[in-house]
């Protein structure tokens, strides 16, 4: 029996002699390629690839396309508030669900530092994403006029690296890794402070992400197929004038989070201070934003968001560091001894994230701290041009 023989087909409504069971076209025999041919072909393929990647790259006007399901909502809020906002807080989830612009603004109302703030923190956002969104925010501010409010850019100094494979291979999350951002990320990777393993991991990640950025992974598709916004998330972030605050409510009783809270509260003892890490990247971030901040009269401020495990150890930072435009404040709200009112049950969703009530208290404390460092009172407002560290 000849196994290779094509089987006979019946003429049926389901099958035709011409259409079914067709083999791929037989190719003619071709000469065996030499190694020179192969090298030339690989070179030609690389040239074609690089050329097309460059053309695509240059044709994309706005490469800032962030991870749609989490990040684009914040850009939408920024668009909604365009012209009305004057300040914003940036960072990771500790800011996204831990900073309440309403409480922050209320505390500064009537002072020279009166401002209208947005929460542009990004859950899972890295330091580099914080930098890009902050830069976009400053650029979006109108030129300063006489009547404009005080302008602050509040940066979370302890924002995580948050490098995940999703971010690396996720087309719409890596698009911010252009050359300045790669340099910035590498600046955050000081092997003397972080250890070689973390330093190589962070630098390697950003270099790879940079390579993918210039290969345009997903950038064209995200320009064409603009991903739909997460309407539910957007509604929660804009409801009740939250201005970007993602509300966290209480951890469910008996959940791992609530048990962790109880364990930490029960731990007792005196919290242990540790030196906080001020990395080259923190200075680099200030340099990255300096030009835009100078043009738009924006004051850059670092802050430390509280965590429940501050009850065991907390970081100590200098009051300010030297920035390109002068000293930059570091407002450290992660000190239980200074702010015992933050470390109460009901204010924590889990050991590192506040509830909505906790966010209001933290934001008020942050504004208080800013006020006192700038030596402002409601009774004696200082001229805005003199807003500076006294």
């Amino acid at each position, binding site marked *: 029996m000849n196994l290779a023989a094509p089987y006979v087909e*019946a003429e049926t409504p*389901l099958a035709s002699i011409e259409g079914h*069971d067709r083999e791929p076209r037989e*190719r003619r025999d*071709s000469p065996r390629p030499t190694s020179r041919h192969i090298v030339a072909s690989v070179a030609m*393929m690389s040239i074609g690839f690089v050329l097309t990647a460059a053309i695509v790259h240059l044709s994309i006007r706005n490469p800032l396309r962030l991870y749609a399901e989490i990040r684009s909502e914040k850009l939408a809020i920024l668009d909604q508030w365009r012209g009305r906002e004057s300040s914003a807080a940036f960072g990771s989830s500790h800011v996204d669900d831990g900073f309440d612009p309403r409480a922050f603004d209320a505390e500064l109302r009537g002072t020279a530092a009166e401002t209208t703030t947005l929460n542009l923190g990004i859950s899972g956002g890295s330091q580099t994403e914080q930098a890009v969104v902050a830069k976009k925010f400053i650029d979006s501010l109108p030129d300063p006029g006489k009547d404009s409010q005080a302008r602050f850019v509040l940066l979370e100094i302890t924002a995580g690296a948050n490098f995940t494979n999703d971010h690396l291979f996720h087309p719409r999350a890596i698009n911010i890794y252009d050359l300045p951002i790669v340099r910035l990320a590498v600046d955050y990777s000081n092997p003397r402070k972080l250890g070689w393993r973390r330093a190589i991991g962070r630098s390697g990640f950003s270099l790879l992400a940079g390579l993918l950025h210039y290969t345009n992974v997903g950038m064209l598709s995200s320009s064409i197929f603009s991903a739909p916004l997460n309407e539910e998330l957007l509604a929660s972030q804009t409801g009740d004038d939250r201005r970007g605050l993602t509300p966290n409510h209480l951890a469910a009783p008996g959940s791992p989070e609530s048990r962790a809270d109880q364990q930490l509260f029960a731990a007792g003892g005196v919290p242990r201070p540790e030196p906080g890490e001020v990395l080259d990247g923190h200075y680099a971030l200030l340099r990255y934003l300096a030009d835009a901040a100078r043009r738009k009269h924006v004051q850059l401020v670092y802050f430390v968001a509280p965590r429940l495990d501050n009850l065991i150890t907390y970081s100590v930072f200098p009051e300010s560091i030297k920035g390109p435009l002068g000293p930059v404040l570091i407002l450290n709200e992660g000190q239980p001894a200074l702010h015992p009112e933050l470390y109460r049950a009901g204010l924590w969703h889990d050991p590192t994230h506040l509830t909505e009530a906790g966010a209001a208290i933290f934001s008020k404390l942050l504004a208080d701290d800013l006020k006192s460092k700038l030596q402002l009172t409601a009774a004696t407002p200082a001229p805005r041009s003199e807003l500076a560290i006294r």
Partner: protein
Amino acid sequence: MLFVELRFFVFFAIVLITYWSLRSNNLRKWFLLAASYYFYGSWDWRFACMLFGLSCGDYFFARCISQTEDRRARRWYVTASLTMNLSVLAFFKYFHFFVNSAIAAASAAHIHLDEPTIHIILPVGVSFFTFQSLSYTIDVYRREIPAVHSIRDYVLFAAFFPQLVAGPIVRPKYFVPQLASNRHVTVDDIKHALYLFLLGYVKKACIADNISPYVDKVFNAPAHWSALASITATWLYTVQIFSDFSGYSDMAIAVAAMMGYKLVLNFDAPYLSESIQDFWRRWHISLSSWIRDYIYISLGGRSKKLWLTYRNLMITMLAGGLWHGAAWTFVAWGGLHGGALVVNQEFRRHFPLNKNAVPWWRRAFGWFLTMNFVCICWILFRASSFGVAWLLIKRYLLFNHGGDGSLPVWLIFFAIGLLLLQYLSRRINLHDLVCDLSLPRFAFAYGCVWAFAISMLPFGYRPFIYFQF
């Protein structure tokens, strides 16, 4: 492990290098067998063991069939093979369907039955490899092929990783002879395979996965969307399912071709069909020929009594619908196509065509009817329930205006673009044009298209639609 994922690229690079570095055909086959089981085991090792058990069972039954001339014994063995394969299929794929249907029927008769708490995971590609195995024992039983001597060869045929999880459904009479000798590839074969792989990648990753979120939005919550958005989503799904499935088939054929194996063509520009019969000659060819050979012909095929032919056709298409998914919507989808085939046969009987002189308007009208019918049927195929399907069908036929939700209008051009591309690529024979380029030119063009494809990567990879079948 999806063909479009980075880990598949790593896996396949290792497989390809190792495969071609082995000299003996025996070693290559052992290696391919191990790679195939690793590939399938990356989903779930338990199911890889099940696949091995099924393959050994079918090998054994086929050997028994071939070694006896006793008709009763042969029938007994083939029945045993059928029972084994169909039991696996029924248990894993249709258990919940049968149970839920029974509960619904009992509920209609005011009898309350509790739902079972058992949760069965569907082994990926179960419908494909069981059908493939069935065709082997049935072919041996019908004396169309001899039983395979080497158990290694048979197990490799059943588990060959390029087509294991979503076809094309390969017949043993086509594939097994290829295992007999060392495979060789020419530069043209490689160019052909690389072209097909990239084509499949673009179809799946750059087209299907990018439009999928729009389709999901409408089909998951149809009430909110306008009629235009619903029609757009239906057309987009028409594009998505073709790009997704034919993309997988293209990549499967390409992956096999890079190792010197040939698989059958599975799609032949189905959306250019001018009748529903034509459509089934071009869509999922390996399945339509399978159900033709093993269901339609087994039922008697074309009969002198017309109603018997139509009955056979309807049963075949209903079974084809059920093969796709364990839900009544799939059965209805198969039934609609079966009905359309019957109507088409009747029409052709009363208005016979001279194949060489079909007026253009009749061809255009035939295409228009076929495409819209296929689109409406895809609604049933995609919808989660008859309620959703009925709502979207009404909107498609403009009997329901729907809500305010809209999709970007330009998305409609995707469907039109796909049709034009299919038409043009057939007219100018794009495939041959590309493969006939000199090697450096081909490499340059290949690099350009890859750069473009990478810039068009989607927000997230989605499993191939046909994996669930």
